[in-house]
């Protein structure tokens, strides 16, 4: 297991106070006659500008953790602080954007209007909205589909719209729940590069759920490995690959070492 609070990374200093801090967070769901411990005693500190990936078996609590951070769910116990605020305050100050696991597009809005939704909600100046939304659609390669309605898109295209929507308002903190899960490798790699560029250029902090070890390693400054039932943080792996990442990063000898380390952790958790 890797030391938890000893990490180095490109664009944040370890002396600043954590941007996100998770303390002993536990989440228990009561259903019909049983309880599901979706998260047990989770602890995690995230510095500003980090790129954190969450990886772990299906149903281990990744989504639950993101939802708790995003103030969409209240943990059974434990404390959360984001930028020194409660999750509610953070949410209300529009500190983050969230890409849900399902696209969650609105049937009644065209692709363009779906992407413009956060801009409308947050009262961006009218002139900019269209421009910004179109820019994001270009980023995800859907500029030609702006007039379509969601049901007229393929699964991967819907997911990309939802990514464009989350990026549109340029939030400093990004929660992304398997955003690239339904995409082919090439589109995925392109979007990986775009995301990294955005991250680098804007200094965003990203918390990213993925099932792809190589994606996690390629993108992240640290990878949080989780185990299932009860959902726990099994370990946190520091990704000390040079920044900025590029195509060569995947060839780097450390890449494989880290990937292997994560795989081991995962296997350990799975057993």
């Amino acid at each position: 297991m890797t030391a938890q609070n000893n990490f180095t990374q490109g664009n944040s200093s370890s002396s600043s106070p954590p941007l996100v801090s998770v303390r002993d967070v536990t989440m228990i769901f009561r259903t019909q006659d049983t309880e599901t411990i979706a998260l047990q005693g989770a602890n995690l500190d995230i510095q500003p500008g980090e790129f954190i990936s969450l990886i772990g078996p299906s149903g281990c609590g990744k989504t639950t953790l993101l939802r708790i951070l995003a103030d969409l769910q209240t943990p059974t116990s434990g404390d959360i602080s984001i930028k020194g605020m409660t999750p509610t305050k953070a949410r209300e100050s529009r500190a983050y954007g969230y890409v849900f696991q399902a696209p969650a597009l609105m049937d009644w809005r065209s692709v363009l209007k779906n992407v413009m939704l956060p801009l409308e909600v947050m009262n961006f100046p009218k002139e900019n909205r269209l421009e910004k939304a179109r820019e994001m659609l270009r980023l995800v390669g859907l500029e030609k589909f702006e007039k379509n309605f969601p049901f007229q898109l393929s699964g991967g295209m819907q997911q990309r719209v939802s990514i464009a929507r989350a990026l549109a308002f340029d939030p400093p903190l990004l929660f992304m729940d398997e955003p690239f899960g339904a995409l082919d490798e090439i589109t995925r790699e392109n979007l990986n590069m775009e995301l990294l560029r955005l991250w680098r250029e804007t200094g965003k902090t990203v918390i990213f759920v993925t099932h792809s070890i190589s994606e996690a390693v390629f993108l992240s400054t640290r990878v949080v490995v989780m185990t299932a039932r009860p959902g726990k943080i099994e370990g946190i792996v520091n990704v000390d690959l040079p920044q900025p990442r590029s195509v060569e990063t995947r060839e780097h000898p450390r890449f494989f070492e880290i990937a292997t380390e994560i795989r081991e952790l995962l296997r350990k958790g799975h057993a």
Partner: protein
Amino acid sequence: MASYSVMKENRPQASRAWISWTLVLLAHLVLFFISYTLNQQQGVSQKLLLQIVTVLSLFVGLTAVGLVAQNRRDFIPAALLFTVSVLFVEAMLRVNEVPAGLIPTPSRVVVALYNAREVLMLDVFYTFVLEALIGFVAGIVIGVLASMAVARYKFLELGILPYASIFSSIPIVALAPVMVKAIGLEWPSKAAVVAVTVIFPIIVNVVRGLQSASPLHLDLMRSYGASPMRVFFDVRVPTAMPYFFNALKISTTLSLISAIVAEFFGTTGNGLGFRIQIEAGRFNFDIVWAAIVVASVIGIVFFSLIGALERKVTGWHASYRS
């Protein structure tokens, strides 16, 4: 391309279409002939035979219209259904010598419709425009505002919704006299009755609609720190639309009938309800039914307009994807 393939599909059915059209025509002719030859004043001989032929023609006609309807997406089947049924009613009434003072034949109604057209148009203005329409709009506005409050505050949902059902349980026959007493004999008292009867369907539907928003959409808006207003307009209102339109559709006919019935309880002498009441008392059921036909036509047009609006506004809804 597409039309070609449709044509191709239908070709084997061409002969069947021909047969059904023939049957439709036959049914019309028989029914018309029966009606034409029977004069209501003279006695009818061979009643049983004629009854059987008439019912049989209706049966043949309906079946044939059903066959015609299978290959058409236009108004023709509805129109044929209409003509067959009307001819059947005409023939049946004549065969059974039903007096006009009880049920008039459709032909008498048509004549009355023509003769009374000016009076009826003025009645329509009172009943539909002043009473039904104004009451409809007022009811919607009040109903929607109440629904918003109810959907917003759990307290109101528990506290007000049950009372809202009280409103709709007050029969018009009890409400209308009170309204006349309170507001007067002129049209506003009827518009008020219409508004009251329309409110409940609106509230029930709109509240349910507002509460049906997808949890994921609500989460999304929450993640934006969206104000309740934004959540309301961006998520809840669109999801409530199909429900809202259901309520509107029901309210189209409800408002019309409420206005008509409310006129039975005091009026200054205009309106379809007044006309129906006064002419029913004189056993002039041809004018009564002429007024009902006018009301029905308005009802259908009103309903269709709302239906068209629904398609326009909620075209995205699953119910419009085939």
